């Protein structure tokens, strides 16, 4: 396995706020992975792990930055959050999480969200099983760009 550090670069100057990144992220993290079913046939509907901020004509998508000095990692009391040695991504083990929300408290981007059942749901996983994260792949204007560097 090639060890690559993946990073999603956000170009807010060309984000049009269409929120297709959210749509496709939701689908990717749904049970069926089928877009129409994910929206119309799965309850509760899956949640996107990316969020779009808007203010006037400014908009940008934001997802976990997988920080070098990740505050969520140092705040996690269960070890549910961990850095994947292969990709450098900060991943999350749902089985370990107890929902203490320390990570939400320290994440400067506000990109970790609570789910039902006292578990984190919204935590970007960089779609490591995909060649390109789905938010990047489906961004119609390249406002999200995936860069990879060898670890």
């Amino acid at each position, binding site marked *: 396995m090639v060890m690559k550090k993946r990073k999603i670069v956000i170009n807010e100057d060309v984000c049009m706020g269409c929120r297709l990144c959210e749509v496709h992220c939701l689908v990717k993290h749904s049970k069926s992975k089928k877009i129409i079913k994910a929206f119309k046939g799965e309850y509760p509907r899956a949640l996107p792990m990316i969020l779009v901020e808007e203010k006037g004509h400014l908009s940008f998508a934001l997802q976990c930055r997988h920080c070098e000095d990740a505050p969520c990692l*140092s*705040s996690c009391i*269960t070890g549910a959050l961990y850095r994947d040695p292969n990709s450098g991504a900060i991943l999350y083990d749902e089985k370990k999480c*107890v929902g203490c929300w*320390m990570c939400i408290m320290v994440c400067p981007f506000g990109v970790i969200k609570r789910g039902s059942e006292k578990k984190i749901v919204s935590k970007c996983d960089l779609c490591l099983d995909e060649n390109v994260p789905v938010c990047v792949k489906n961004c119609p204007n390249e406002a999200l760009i995936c860069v990879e560097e060898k670890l």
Partner: protein
Amino acid sequence: MKYLIIGNSVAAVAAVEAIREKDGKGDITLISDEPQFVYSRPLISYLLAGNVKVEQMYYRGKNFYENNKVRAVLGKRVTSVDAANRKVVLEDGEEFLFEKLLIATGGKPIVPKTKGSDLNGVFTFTKWDDVEKIKKLLLGTEVKRAVIVGGGLIGLKAAEGLTALGIKITIVELSDRIMSSTFDGTTSEMMKKILEKRGVEVVTKNTADEIIANGSKVGGVVLRDGTRINCEMVVFAIGVSPNIEMVKNSGIKVNRGIHVDEYMRTNFPDIYAAGDVVEAYDLVLRDNRPIAIWPNASIQGAVAGHNMAGGTKKYVGSFAMNSIEICDIPTISMGLTDPPAGKGYEVLQQLDEEKPTYRKIILKDNVVVGAIFVNDIDRAGIFTSLIKDKIDTSSFKDVLLKEEFGLAWFPKEYRKHLVVGPGIEI
């Protein structure tokens, strides 16, 4: 290099990881008075309530020492540090030499001198052992009711764990409200109501004067106002103080906790300290004090470890912050939550008693210095960074409480700095 670490909780763990990042070979010896492998102390209330299994306590996995080539000396107490001769002495007289020492002994629970506090059924609540002791009691004794002395974080966590076991709880708090050091009055009141709804009795402006014996066991508590509460268990949850006994007479400088510089170094250049045992710089209060919170201990441990292995990382300071869920109501608080009147603080707040939700932002000179979020904690971390980076919010103060508030309101350059990080052009 010979590293020696006293302590086995998050600061020690972070230090081990940081040392190993820089130095894969040096000897690391870790001494702890607890017999357990590395485990997560905050999880004890979950363990008590049965919400986590024993396995889950080991948040770094059971082979942490092995993976990091650490010689662990568990279940042994260090009694003194000989700074001049660079050695520590254990209670059994064994000595360990070091080239670099980290003191990460954490805090120890405060138990006031109270009659009957030695009875079977009187506990503190900071360690795995405490849970084991409680469980042991519960095996042989029917506990219907427990009194928790102290209405702070630990007290509430203990209350949560015990309530889950079906034990009726009375919290006795000396001050006029619970969680007084974490929350403001509004929040304390909300929490009290929530607790009471769940059947927890909250008694304020009072404390346990005496624990009444029932044989060798606890039979009840007499409060300061003379009220007598029959119970089978008492938990002291008044707070913790830095665990600094072993450094007495060692020459290591101690104020409210062990004094360290920004490199987490004590007044001896080869001796470091991190975690709840030290006094750290509080970015909000602008003062050195112990900030006994997990993320702080973790960062300090990492800084200390890095520097012990030859690095030059600086610790910039921290401030109090807590995330606690009380009866399924999540709360986050940070910094200065209950500012004194007349000192130029500005308060923005939004309360919905129905839901109930509460958001409160405290500013000074347009810079956020504290915040409380109750039952509405999404994106609370943005405020942590606003406090830490001392961002002037004057241009977006009016939207701080709004749901849509986010990074979009930040000055563009600061946002780009945050989002893109150094070195990446977009």
